[in-house]
C-alpha cells in the first residue's frame, strides 16, 4: 500500500514538472511591452539616464550633462569605457541584464553589427537636427535606411610633415614623389605611409575610382564589390611603385608597421607621413615641429578619398526611456556642446557651423582634418566590411613584397571576400 502510494506521488510530481514546462505566456507579453510603454511625456520622466563615454573623454561630456540636467531635471550619469571594444562587449551582457546604459558611443563602423545584434535602436530626430551635421557623417550613421545615432566626432588620415625637413606641404603627390626620390637614402625617408594596411591604402584605390561596396539609395550593396575594378588596380599599381622603388622600406610592412613609422618620424628620419589625428600628440611629445595638411592630390588630379571614421552617440536598444535618451543624444551633440567637446578634447565634431567657426578654421591641424574629411568617404558600416580587411590587407602586402601583381592580388582578394560574405552573411 505504502509502496503504491509512493509510486503515485512520484508520478504526480513528474507530471506536475512537465506540465509547467517553459515560461508562462502571459509573463512574456508584459515583458515585451516594457519597451514601448515609456513613450515620453513629462509624466514618464525617468529619474536618471546613464551614458557610456569613451575613456578620457568624459571631461567634454560633463558640461553638456550639467546643462541637460538643468533644462530637463533628469539626472545623467556617465561611465568611461574603451570605445573600440569594451562598450560593445559590455552592453551585450549588461543590456539584457537590465543594468546597461541608455546612451553609448561607438565608432560608426560597428553600427551595422550592433544594429543586427539588436544592441542599438534607430532614432527619430527632426530633419533640422540632422541638417546641422555634414552629409558624410550622417551617411555614416545610417544603416539600412535608418538613422542609428548622431555624430560626435570625426577623424581621417592627413598629411603630417616635419617642418624642419620640409618647408611647406606639397600640393600634389608628384611633388612628394620627386622630393622622396631625392631625399630617401641612408635610412632617411621622404614620405611614409602604411599602404599595406587597407585603412590607408583604400584612399588611393578610391581616388583612382575603386570602391569597397557600391553605395545605392538604400545604403551599401555588399554584393557589388569594386575592389578589383580598373581604378582599384591603377591605384594599387601606384602603391606598388612606392614599394618597388624602395621609397618605402620593407620593414614597414606588416603588423608592426605603425610603430615603425612613428618611430622613424619621431627620430626625424622621415620627413612626412600619412597618419590620423591620433598620432599628433605623440609626435609633439617627441619634440617634432609638425605641420598638418590635407593629403596632396594624386597624380590623376583627384584627391585622396580617405576613410572617415565617425564616432557617434547611440541609444541602447535595452533602454527603457528611448525617447528621453534620444533627447539626450540631441542635446550632447548640438553645436554648443560640440564646440565644448572640441575645446576640451581636440576631437572634431562634424557640425557644419563649427567647421566654419574660426576656432577650427584657424587651427592648422583641425582644419586639415576637416578639409580632408570633406574629400573622404565614411568607412562602410555594414557587417560585411569585417570580411574585407584581412583579404584586402593580404593583397596589398603581397603586392608590396613583390609576390603578386596588383590585378591578380586584387582578384584573389575579391574572390575570398565574396565567398566569405556568402558564407557568413548570406542569411
Amino acid at each position, binding site marked *: 500500500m*505504502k*509502496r503504491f502510494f*509512493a*509510486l503515485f*506521488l*512520484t508520478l504526480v*510530481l513528474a507530471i506536475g*514538472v512537465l506540465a*509547467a*514546462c*517553459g*515560461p508562462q505566456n502571459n509573463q*512574456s507579453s508584459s*515583458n*515585451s511591452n516594457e*519597451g514601448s510603454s515609456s513613450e515620453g511625456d513629462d509624466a514618464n520622466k525617468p529619474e536618471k539616464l546613464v551614458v557610456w563615454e569613451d575613456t578620457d573623454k568624459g571631461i567634454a561630456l560633463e558640461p553638456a550633462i550639467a546643462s541637460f540636467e538643468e533644462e530637463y531635471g533628469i539626472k545623467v550619469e556617465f561611465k568611461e569605457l574603451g570605445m573600440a571594444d569594451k562598450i560593445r562587449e559590455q552592453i551585450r551582457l549588461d*543590456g*539584457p541584464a537590465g543594468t546597461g546604459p541608455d546612451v553609448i558611443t561607438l565608432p560608426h563602423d560597428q553600427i551595422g*553589427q550592433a544594429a*543586427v*545584434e*539588436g*544592441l542599438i535602436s534607430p532614432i527619430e530626430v527632426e530633419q533640422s537636427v540632422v541638417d546641422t551635421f555634414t552629409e558624410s557623417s550622417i551617411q555614416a550613421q545610417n544603416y539600412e535606411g535608418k538613422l542609428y545615432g548622431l555624430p560626435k566626432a570625426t577623424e581621417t588620415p592627413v598629411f603630417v610633415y616635419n617642418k624642419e625637413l620640409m618647408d611647406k606641404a606639397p600640393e600634389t603627390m608628384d611633388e612628394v614623389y620627386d622630393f622622396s626620390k631625392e631625399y630617401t637614402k641612408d*635610412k632617411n625617408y621622404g614620405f611614409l605611409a602604411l599602404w599595406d594596411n587597407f585603412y590607408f591604402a583604400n584612399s588611393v584605390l578610391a581616388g583612382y575610382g575603386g570602391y569597397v561596396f557600391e553605395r545605392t539609395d538604400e545604403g551599401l550593396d555588399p554584393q557589388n564589390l569594386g575592389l578589383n575594378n580598373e581604378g582599384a588596380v591603377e591605384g594599387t599599381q601606384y602603391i606598388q611603385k612606392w614599394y618597388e622603388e624602395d621609397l618605402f*622600406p*620593407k*620593414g*614597414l*610592412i*606588416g*603588423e*608592426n608597421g605603425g610603430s*615603425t613609422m612613428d*618611430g*622613424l618620424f619621431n627620430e626625424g628620419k622621415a620627413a612626412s607621413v600619412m597618419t590620423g589625428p591620433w598620432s599628433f600628440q605623440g609626435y609633439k611629445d617627441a619634440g617634432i615641429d609638425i605641420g598638418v595638411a590635407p593629403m596632396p592630390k594624386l597624380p590623376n588630379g583627384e584627391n585622396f578619398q580617405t576613410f572617415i571614421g565617425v564616432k557617434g552617440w547611440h541609444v541602447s*536598444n*535595452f533602454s527603457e526611456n528611448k525617447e528621453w535618451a534620444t533627447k539626450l543624444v540631441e542635446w550632447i551633440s548640438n553645436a554648443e556642446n560640440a564646440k565644448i567637446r572640441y575645446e576640451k578634447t581636440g576631437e572634431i565634431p562634424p557640425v557644419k557651423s563649427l567647421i566654419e567657426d574660426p576656432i577650427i578654421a584657424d587651427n592648422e591641424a583641425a582644419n586639415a582634418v576637416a578639409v580632408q574629411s570633406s574629400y573622404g568617404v565614411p568607412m562602410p558600416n555594414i*557587417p560585411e566590411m*569585417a*570580411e574585407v*580587411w*584581412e583579404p584586402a*590587407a*593580404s*593583397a596589398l*602586402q*603581397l603586392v608590396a*613584397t613583390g609576390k*603578386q601583381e596588383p590585378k591578380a*592580388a586584387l582578384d*584573389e*582578394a575579391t*574572390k*575570398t571576400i565574396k*565567398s*566569405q560574405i556568402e*558564407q*557568413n*552573411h548570406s*542569411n
Partner: protein
Amino acid sequence: MEATERQTKHRKTALALSLIPGFGQFYNKQLLKGFMFLILTVSFAVAFADLINIGLWGIVTLGEKLPRDHSIFLLTQGIIAVLVILIGLLIYFLNLRDAYLNGRNRDLGIPLNSVREQYRNVTEQGFPYLMLTPGFFLLIFVVIFPILFVILLSFTNYDLYHSPPANLVDWIGIQNYIDIFKLDIWRNTFIDVFSWTIVWTFVATTGQIAIGIFLAVLMNQKDLKFKGIFRTIFILPWAVPAFVSILVFAGMFNETFGAINNDILAAFGIDAIPWLTEPFWTKVALILIQFWLGFPFIFAMVTGVLQSIPEELYEAATVDGANIWQKFRGITLPMVLFAIAPILITQYTFNFNNFNVIYLFNGGGPAVSGQTAGSTDILISWIYKLTFTSAQYGKAAAITMILSAIVIGVALWQFRRTKSFQEEDMM
C-alpha cells in the same frame, strides 16, 4: 542468519519507500537521517523548480519568442539546470543506497548505527569528502560548465546573424563540423593551418627541450667554474615576461631596421633576410624565439633532476669503460626523461596552443592569398580571428572542439605510454 534473511524483506521495502526520500530511513527507524533527506529533497525541489523548469525548456528550444528569450542566457541556464539535476540525482541515489544498505543490515540482523555513531561516521570517514566538496562544486561551475558551454555551442548556428537579443540561436546538429571540411575556403585553410600547427609544435618544443637538457648537462660538469653566474644567465629569459621578449624580438627581426639583419647578420656578411614578409623565414624566426622563451624552464628542471642521479652509476660506468656519450645515453638521458616526461608532454600541449608568440610577433602573418588565415597562424590564433573579426562563434567552437580532442588525445596517449606512470620506481 539465513533464516532471517528469507523471512524479512526490509531492504526491498526500505528501497521502495525511499522513492520518496527519507521514508526508507523512517522505515529503518532512522528518523533524524530521514528528516534530513526529506528536507533536503523538498528544499531542493522548491529552490530549483523554476531554474530547472526554465533551464530544461531553454536548453531544448533555445528560446521561442523575441524579445523575451535570450538564447545564450537560456543555454547557460539550461546547463546549470542539468548540473543541478545531476547533483540532485546523486543525492537521490545516496538516499536509495542508504535505505537499501540499512534494510539489508536489518535483514541480516546487524544492528543499525545510532545517531551518535552516524555522526562519528560522517566526521571521521567522511572528513576528506567534506573538505573536498566546496572545491568540487567550484570546479563543476568554473571548469566543467565552460567546457559544456563550448561543446554545446559548437552544435548551434551562433554567429552575427543569429545572435541575441535581436535573433534566436538554433540547434543545427553537426553542420559546423561538416562545413569546416566541406567548404573549400575553410577546408584549405584548416589543412594548411593544422599542418603548420603540428610542425610548429614538434620542432619548437623538441628544440627547446633539447637545448634545455644540453645546457643543463653542460652546466652540471663538476669542474665548471662560476656555475651560479651561468645558471642565472640561462634562467633570465624566463624571468622576463614573455610578451615583452616577443615584442622586442619583433622589432629586432624587422627587415630594414632590426638589429638582426643590420648588425648581427651584416657582421657575418649575410644579406638581409625577409624575416617578417616571407612565410618560411617568419616560421624560422618564430621557432627560434620559442627556443629562447622555452628552454630556461627545461634547463631549471633538468638541473634539479641531475642533482639527484647517484654518482655511483657514473663511477660504475667508468669502471666498465663507457665513454661520455655512452654515459649520457645510458644513464643521464633515461633518468632525466623518466623524471620529467609528464612535464615534457605539457610542453608540447602548451606550444600547440601557444597563442602569445604567434599573435604578438607578426599577427599570424605574412599573408597568404585566398585564405582566411595568415601563413604562421596556428589553430588557436585562427580561432581568435574567426571569433573576433567574423563573429563565427559556432564554427569557432567547433574548431575548438577538434583542437581539444587532438590535445587531449595526444596527452592521454603519451601519459599512458610514459614510464613515470607505469612503474613505481626506476631504480
